[in-house]
C-alpha cells in the first residue's frame, strides 16, 4: 500500500514508519507544522522536524512537511481558548485528531493518492473497529474515539500491538536517533505548561464558596476545573475540599467534600459513534489515562453502577465494549 505516515520526531512514530517500511509498504513520512511563532518550541519545532527527517533518511523513505497552521489555529487553539474562557475543560489533543490528523491530513493524503494514513498512536485499527493499544499504560484510544468505521479503514496504527518497551527496543535495534527520546507531556502549543496557558486565556480573579460562605479565592476562575482540590486559597483545612462547580459569569467557584463531588449520572453531547449509538451496558473512561467505570447508556445519559467523580464540562467521555471504542462525546 501507499502509506503516508505522520512523523512527529518522537520514538513511536519513528518505529511506526519503520514497521510499515519493513512490511513492504511504499511509505512517505510527513511532519506537520502546526504552530510556529518566535519560540519555535513544542511538538512541531524545527528540532522535531529535523528528528523526523533524519529518521526518514535513515529508513530510506521520502519525507515532506505540511503546514496546517491556519487550520490548527481555527480548529484547535481558538476552541481551546474559548472553552477555558467559558469555564469548560478542553482536550486539545482530541480536537487535533478530529480536525487535523484524521480530517485535514486524511483528506490531503487521499488527494495525493495514498491508500492510508498511519500514526504512532498506541491503539489498534482492526476491520473498521478501534481497539485499545496492547500497552495499557500507554493506550491512546481515548483521544481517538471520534474515528468512525469508514475512516478507520484508511488509518493504520503500526505500533498498537506493541508495548512501549518493545517500541524502544525496536528503535534501538534499528539504531534510530529517537530511541531514547522522552515522551512529550505538555500540550504542544503550550511548552511552558500552565504559564503559557495563562498567557493565552484572558482570566479573572474569583471567589471560592462553600455553603454560601466565601472561604477562599482563585487568581483565574476560568482555569479552575471540577474535581480540583489545590490552588483554591483554602489554607490547611482538616477536610479536603473539591471544586464542585465553576460559574464564570459570576466568577464563583463552589467547593465541598468528596461526597458532594460524586454522581451517578453524567450527560454527554456532540457524540460520534464508530458503528451506531450504543444502548445498554458500557465501560466509560472520562480522562486520558483515567479509570474505567461500568454504566448503562441511553440517549446521551450515562447511569453509573457505582458513583463516580463529576466530569468537568468539556471533557471527553468515551464509551467502550471491552477493548473496543464505541464512540463518545463531551460532558455537559
Amino acid at each position: 500500500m501507499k502509506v503516508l505516515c505522520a512523523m512527529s520526531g518522537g520514538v513511536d512514530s519513528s518505529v511506526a514508519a519503520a514497521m510499515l517500511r519493513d512490511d513492504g509498504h511504499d511509505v512517505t513520512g510527513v511532519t506537520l507544522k502546526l504552530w510556529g511563532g518566535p519560540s519555535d518550541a513544542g511538538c512541531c519545532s524545527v528540532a522535531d522536524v529535523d528528528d523526523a527527517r533524519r529518521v526518514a533518511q535513515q529508513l530510506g523513505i521520502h519525507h515532506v512537511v505540511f503546514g496546517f497552521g491556519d487550520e490548527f489555529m481555527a480548529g484547535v487553539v481558538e476552541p481551546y481558548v474559548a472553552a477555558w474562557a467559558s469555564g469548560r475543560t478542553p482536550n486539545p489533543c482530541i480536537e487535533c485528531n478530529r480536525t487535523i490528523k484524521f480530517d485535514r491530513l486524511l483528506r490531503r493524503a487521499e488527494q495525493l493518492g495514498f491508500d492510508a494514513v498511519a500514526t504512532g498512536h498506541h491503539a489498534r485499527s482492526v476491520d473498521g473497529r478501534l481497539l485499545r493499544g496492547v500497552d495499557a499504560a500507554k493506550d491512546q484510544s481515548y483521544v481517538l474515539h471520534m474515528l468512525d468505521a469508514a475512516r478507520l479503514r484508511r488509518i493504520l496504527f503500526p505500533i498498537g500491538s506493541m508495548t512501549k518497551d518493545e517500541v524502544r527496543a525496536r528503535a534501538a535495534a534499528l539504531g534510530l536517533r529517537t530511541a531514547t527520546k522522552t515522551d512529550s507531556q505538555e500540550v504542544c502549543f503550550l511548552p511552558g505548561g500552565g504559564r503559557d496557558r495563562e498567557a493565552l486565556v484572558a482570566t479573572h480573579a474569583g471567589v471560592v464558596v462553600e455553603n454560601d460562605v466565601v472561604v477562599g479565592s482563585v487568581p483565574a476562575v476560568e482555569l479552575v476545573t471540577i474535581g480540583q482540590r489545590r490552588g483554591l486559597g483554602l489554607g490547611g483545612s482538616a477536610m479536603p475540599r473539591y471544586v464542585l462547580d465553576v460559574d464564570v459569569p459570576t466568577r464563583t467557584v463552589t467547593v465541598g467534600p468528596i461526597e458532594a463531588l460524586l454522581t451517578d449520572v453524567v450527560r454527554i453531547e456532540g457524540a460520534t459513534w464508530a458503528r451506531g449509538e450504543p444502548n445498554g451496558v458500557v465501560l466509560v473512561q472520562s480522562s486520558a489515562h483515567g479509570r474505567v467505570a461500568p454504566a448503562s447508556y441511553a440517549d446521551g445519559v450515562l447511569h453509573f453502577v457505582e458513583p463516580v467523580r463529576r466530569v468537568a464540562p468539556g471533557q471527553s467521555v468515551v464509551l467502550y465494549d471491552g477493548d473496543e471504542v464505541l464512540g463518545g462525546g463531551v460532558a455537559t
Partner: protein
Amino acid sequence: MLGYLDHAATTPMRPSAAEAMIPWLTERFGNPSGGHRVAQAARRAIDEARDVVADCLGCAPREVVFTGGGTEGDNLAIFGQPSPVCSAAEHHAVLHAVERAGGRTVAVDGVGRVVAADIPHDASLVSVMLANNEVGTITPLPSVGPDTVLHTDAVQAVTWLDVASAAAAADLVTVTGHKIGGPQGTGALVVRGKARVEPLLVGGGQEQERRSGTHDVAGIVGFAAALRACTDTREDTVERVGKLRDRLADGLLASIPGCWESGSRDTKVAGICPLLIEGIESEALLFLLDEAGVCATAASSCASGALEPSHVLAAMGVPRDLAQGSLRLSLGWCSTDADVDLALDVIPRAVAHLRGETGGDGPDPRGRRA
C-alpha cells in the same frame, strides 16, 4: 526524467566554476593571509578573483567584500544603520535585518515595486531589491538624498541584468554565488561611495577589516569564475531562457483555467514564472509535481520545509486564499526545452487532479475537469 524549475533557489554549477575550484580543494591549499609562497599563491587567486568581480559588477576591486552569501551581504549592509528602510517585498535577509535594526518598511505596488514617494527622507539607508526573488519584478532603484545610503539586494538580478549599470546608483550591492552557477556559501557585497559597513565578524582583519575570517579560497575562485561566465553569456542567456519562460507561461495559462501570472511579464527578469492557481493548495501541487519529476516551489525556500504564506504576495495585495495556490517556476542558465515540455505535460494534469479530488472545496468551477 527531471524537470528542474527551481533555479531561483539554486542553479547548477557552471563547469568553468567547478573546474576553477578543484585545484584549491586539492593540491593548492594555502592560507592567503600568510607570507610564504604557498600562501601567496592563494593570495594571488583571491586578488585575481576580486578583479573579475569588480569588472563584472562595475566597481573598484577594493570596493568588493567577499562574504559567505546573500544573507551575509544583506546583513552586513544593514546592521549598524540607525534608521534603515526597506520595501515590504524584500527577502527576509533584508526584512529581518531592518526589523532588528529598528527600521521601517515601505509599501509596494501590485507588481512588487516600491512606491518611491513613500520612502521617508530621513532614512539612513534605503534597501530596494533589484529583482524580486519570488515574482521576478525588476525595480528601478529610487533616487535618495545625499545623506542616505542606497542598498540593493541584486542576488536574483545578476543572471538577467547588467548589474554594473542597473545598480550603478547603489552604494551597497549584494550578490551571491549559487544563483549564478557558483558554489553555495559564497558572494560579495560591493561597498562604495558614502557607504561604510559595521563588520559582522571581527578577528584577523581580512577584507580591509570589513569581514574577518580565513578566506574560502576555492569558493571565491568558483564564485568569480561563475560571475565571469554569467556576465559573458548574459545576452544569449536572457534571450534563450526568456523564450523558454514565455513558452512555459503561455502554455500553462492556456491549459489551466483559473491560472494567473503574478505581476506583468514586462517588468520581470527572464527566468521567473510566478503563477497563482485558483482552487488548489501549493503544498499538494508541489508533492504531485515532485513525484512526477518537476522540481519547483510555492514562493521561496524556508528552513523548516513548511510553506509559509508569502509576504511578497501579501505585500502586492494578493488575497490569502489565492496566494495559497502560488507556484514559482524559475529557469536558469542551463534550462532546456525538455524542462519546459515536462512541466507543460505534468502541471496541468496535476492541477486538474487536485481540483477533481477536492470536490466542492475549489472556489472556481471553471477549473474543474473530468
